[in-house]
C-alpha cells in the first residue's frame, strides 16, 4: 500500500469517525433528549396568547351606547424573574399611578410565580409599562367594560366582574347573548425574541348586542328628578318607572340611590338593587283603582253610584278612618277615588266580596311576577281568601295587608290606561339583532270600564283631588296618589311611609305612564306632595320629547 493510499485511508477513517460521532450525537439529541429539547424550544420560541372576545354592547332604544367593551391590558409579574424589585416597583408605580409599597410587596412575593400587578388598564398605560422593559413584567391582552353614560340605568344594565362575566342586572341575565368567545393565537419568535410568525389557532368572537326599550334621555330625566326629590326628602330609596302603556315597554327605570356600574364592589346592596322589580311595599291608596275596577266589572257600581259614608268604618276588630278626619258624607265612586276615601274604598270592596275581590286583583297580576325580562323579580304577597282574617277586607281595598312591586303597579295601571289589556312589561327590545318577543297580553277589564276608570282618575289631578297641584300645560293627566304606612315590628308605623303616584297622559288616549315610589321620605310623606310632583316633572319632559300631542295624537 502506497503512502498516498495510506493517507487517503487515514483521512477516510477520520471522516468516518467524525461522521459516527455526529450520527451518535444527533441520535442522542433527537432520539433520547428529543422530546425534552423540543418542549424547551417551543416554550422559548412559541408563545400562545389568549385573545379575549369582547362583550356585546348594550344600547338604548335609539342606539345610544349604554355599555360597551374596550380593549385593555392586564399587567402581570413573574416575581422570581424581576431584577431589582424596588427599582421595578418604583418605575411601575409611576407608570400605573399606584402605591410603590404595594407593588413591591407583589414583586417580592416569595410563594408565587405569577402575580397580577394591574388589571384592565387602558392601552396607553399598558404601552408605558411595556416601554419600561422590566424583566419579569409582562402584559396580557384583555378587555374591559365601559359605561359611557356613567351611572345612567346602572341597576338595569348591571355590572361585570374582572373576568368579564355578568354579575348583576341584564349583564348577568343576558350573559349568553353578551358574552364573547375568547380566541387563541400562536406567536413564533426567533432566538432574539423577534416575532417571526403569528398564527390564529382559534378566532375570538365578540358577543351580540342587546337593545333595550329604555330611552337614555328619558332615563336621564327620570334619574335627575329622583335625585332632586332625594335632595329634598332624603328618602331611604326611590324608584321611577316610565312606560308606554300601550305595550308595557319600559322607557325608563330609575332608582335612587344610584350605583357606579364600573365599580360594583364599591356599591351597597341597596344601591345595586333594582327597586322597580325587587322591592315590595304596601301600595296604599294607589291600589283603590283596582278595587273600583273590580266593582265596575262586577256591575256593582258605576262612577256615579253614591255611597253614604260615615267618618269611620269598623271591619271585624279594626276601625278604618280617613287620613283627614271628617263628618258623614255622601260620595260617588268617582269622588271616592278622587278624594282617596279609605272608608269609601273599603265600602266598595265589601260590596265586591272577598272571593271576587281576590279574583280581580289576581287578574291584574298581583301575587305573581309580571314576567318582565329582568332577573330577580319579586312577586309580592297576596293572601288567598282562605287565609283572610275577619278584618282583611278592611285592609285590602285600601292597599294594606298585601305587598306589590312598583313594576306590578305600573303594569296594572297600564292595563287601565290602554283599554283593559294587561301586557307583560319588558326592557329588552332586540337581542342579537332579532326583535324580542312582545310578551304575553290578556284582557282583564272591558274597554268601557277602562275608559270609566280613566275618567275617574282624572279627578285625582283635578281641583279637589289629592294631586290637584300637579299639571302639565296643554295635557290632560290622570293618576292616583298613595300614602302607605310601613309595617314596623308587626304594626303600622306613624313615622315611616311609602309615598307613591301612578299616572298617565294624555288622559283620553294614554301614551305615557309614570310611576313614582318613594320609600320613607323625610319631612313630608304624602303621595300627592312627594311623588306626584316628580311624576309631573317627568311627564313635563317626556310628553313633548316623545312627540305626544295634547289631544293624544303624535308619535
Amino acid at each position, binding site marked *: 500500500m502506497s503512502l498516498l493510499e495510506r493517507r487517503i485511508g487515514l483521512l477516510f477513517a477520520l471522516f468516518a469517525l467524525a461522521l459516527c460521532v455526529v450520527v451518535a450525537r444527533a441520535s442522542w439529541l433527537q432520539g433520547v433528549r428529543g422530546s425534552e429539547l423540543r418542549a424547551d424550544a417551543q416554550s422559548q420560541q412559541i408563545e400562545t396568547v389568549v385573545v379575549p372576545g369582547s362583550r356585546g354592547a348594550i344600547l338604548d332604544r335609539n342606539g345610544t351606547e349604554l355599555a360597551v367593551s374596550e380593549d385593555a391590558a392586564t399587567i402581570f409579574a413573574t416575581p422570581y424573574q424581576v431584577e431589582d424589585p424596588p427599582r421595578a416597583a418604583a418605575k411601575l408605580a409611576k407608570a400605573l399611578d399606584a402605591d410603590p409599597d404595594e407593588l413591591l410587596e407583589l414583586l417580592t412575593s416569595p410563594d408565587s410565580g405569577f402575580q397580577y400587578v394591574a388589571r384592565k388598564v387602558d392601552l396607553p398605560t399598558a404601552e408605558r409599562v411595556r416601554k419600561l422593559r422590566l424583566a419579569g413584567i409582562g402584559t396580557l391582552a384583555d378587555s374591559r367594560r365601559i359605561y359611557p353614560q356613567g351611572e345612567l340605568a346602572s341597576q338595569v344594565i348591571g355590572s361585570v366582574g374582572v373576568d368579564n362575566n355578568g354579575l348583576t342586572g341584564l349583564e348577568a341575565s343576558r350573559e349568553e347573548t353578551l358574552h364573547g368567545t375568547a380566541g387563541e393565537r400562536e406567536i413564533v419568535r426567533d432566538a432574539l425574541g423577534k416575532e417571526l410568525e403569528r398564527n390564529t389557532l382559534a378566532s375570538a368572537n365578540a358577543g351580540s348586542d342587546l337593545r333595550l326599550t329604555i330611552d337614555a334621555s328619558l332615563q336621564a330625566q327620570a334619574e335627575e328628578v329622583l335625585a332632586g326629590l332625594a335632595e329634598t326628602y332624603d328618602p331611604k330609596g326611590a324608584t321611577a318607572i316610565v312606560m308606554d302603556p300601550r305595550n308595557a315597554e319600559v322607557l325608563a327605570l330609575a332608582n335612587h340611590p344610584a350605583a357606579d356600574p364600573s365599580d360594583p364592589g364599591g356599591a351597597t346592596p341597596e344601591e345595586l338593587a333594582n327597586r322597580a322589580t325587587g322591592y315590595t311595599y304596601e301600595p296604599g291608596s294607589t291600589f283603590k283603582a283596582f278595587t273600583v275596577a273590580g266593582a265596575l266589572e262586577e256591575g256593582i257600581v258605576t262612577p256615579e253610584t253614591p255611597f253614604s259614608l260615615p267618618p269611620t268604618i269598623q271591619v271585624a276588630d279594626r276601625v278604618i278612618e280617613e287620613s283627614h278626619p271628617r263628618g258623614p258624607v255622601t260620595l260617588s265612586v268617582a269622588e271616592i277615588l278622587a278624594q282617596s276615601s279609605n272608608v269609601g274604598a273599603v265600602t266598595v270592596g265589601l260590596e265586591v266580596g272577598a272571593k271576587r275581590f281576590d279574583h280581580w286583583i289576581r287578574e291584574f297580576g298581583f301575587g305573581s311576577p309580571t314576567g318582565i325580562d329582568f332577573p330577580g323579580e319579586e312577586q309580592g304577597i297576596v293572601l288567598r281568601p282562605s287565609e283572610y282574617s275577619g278584618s282583611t277586607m278592611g285592609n285590602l281595598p285600601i292597599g294594606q295587608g298585601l305587598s306589590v312591586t312598583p313594576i306590578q303597579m305600573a303594569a296594572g295601571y297600564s292595563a287601565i290606561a290602554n283599554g283593559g289589556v294587561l301586557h307583560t312589561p319588558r326592557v329588552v327590545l332586540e337581542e342579537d339583532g332579532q326583535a324580542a318577543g312582545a310578551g304575553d297580553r290578556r284582557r282583564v277589564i272591558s274597554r268601557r270600564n277602562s275608559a270609566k276608570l280613566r275618567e275617574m282618575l282624572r279627578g285625582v289631578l283635578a281641583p279637589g283631588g289629592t294631586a290637584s297641584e300637579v*299639571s302639565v300645560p296643554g295635557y290632560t293627566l290622570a293618576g292616583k296618589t298613595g300614602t302607605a304606612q310601613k309595617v314596623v315590628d308587626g304594626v303600622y308605623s306613624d313615622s315611616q311611609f311609602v309615598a307613591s303616584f301612578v299616572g298617565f297622559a294624555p288622559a283620553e288616549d294614554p301614551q305615557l305612564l309614570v310611576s313614582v315610589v318613594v320609600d320613607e321620605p323625610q319631612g313630608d310623606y304624602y303621595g300627592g306632595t312627594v311623588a306626584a310632583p316628580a311624576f309631573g316633572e317627568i311627564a313635563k319632559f317626556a310628553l313633548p320629547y316623545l312627540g305626544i300631542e295634547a289631544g293624544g295624537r303624535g308619535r
Partner: protein
Amino acid sequence: MPATAAARRVAAAPARRATASRATLKKRPTQGRRKPAGAGRRPPNGRATGSRPRGRPHTPVAGFVPVVVGRTAGAFGGIADSSLVVRMTRGRLWIGVLGVLLVGIVALNVWALSLNASSSKVARQTDGLKRANSALQAQIAAELSNEEVQAAAAKLGLIVPEPGAIRYLEGKRNAAAIAARRLAGGEFTLGEVAPAVVEPPAVPAAVTDAPTAPEDAAVADPAQATATATAPVAPPAATGGGVVAP
C-alpha cells in the same frame, strides 16, 4: 530507469481508464433506449406471450407496475448519462450552477422568513388598530353621552321648551314648497338662534313642597323662553307639522 517507467505506467493507467469509460458512456444512451429482450414483441394474434406459472391468477396491475418502474428508472438513468450532464459535470460550469442553486435555496428561505415576519408585522399592526378602534369607539360613546350633549346644547343656548309652549301644526299642501323657497332665500340661518337668556332646564329643579306649577321649571320669564325656543323654528305656514311656540 525503472522508477520512471513505473511512474509512466501509473500516469498512463488513469488515462486509459478514462478513454474506456468515455467509450462506454457513448454507447450507453443507445443501450438505454434499447427495449428489453422480448419486450414489445407481440405474437401475430396480438396477445402478449410469456410463461406464467399455472394456477397463479393473472392481474393486469401486477404486470404493469414493474414495466412502469423499469422504464422510469431507465429514463432517469438516461438523464445522468446524457452528454449535456456529462459535459457540465466535467466542466467548471457545474461549480457555478451548484453555487447558484445553494444561494437560491438560502435566498428562498430568507425570503420565506421575511414574508412571515412582514405578515406578522401586518397582523400586529391590525391588532393594534383594532385595539385603538375599540378605544376610540368607547371615547365616541362617552362624548355622545347625555351629559355631554346637554352641556354642548346649553353652550349653544338651546333649551327644552315648556310643554305648554309647544303646538303641532298640520302641514298645508304647499308648505314644503314655501319652506324650500324660504330656505333657499336664506331666511333660516343659525344666526337667528337667540342667545340663551335663561339657565337651561337640562337639570330640572329639585322637587319641593311647593306645588308644581306650569311655570315652575328653570325658565325665569316664559315670554323670553318662548322667544328663545321659537327663534330657529320656521313660521307656522312653513313647518308642515314642526314644533313651534304659539
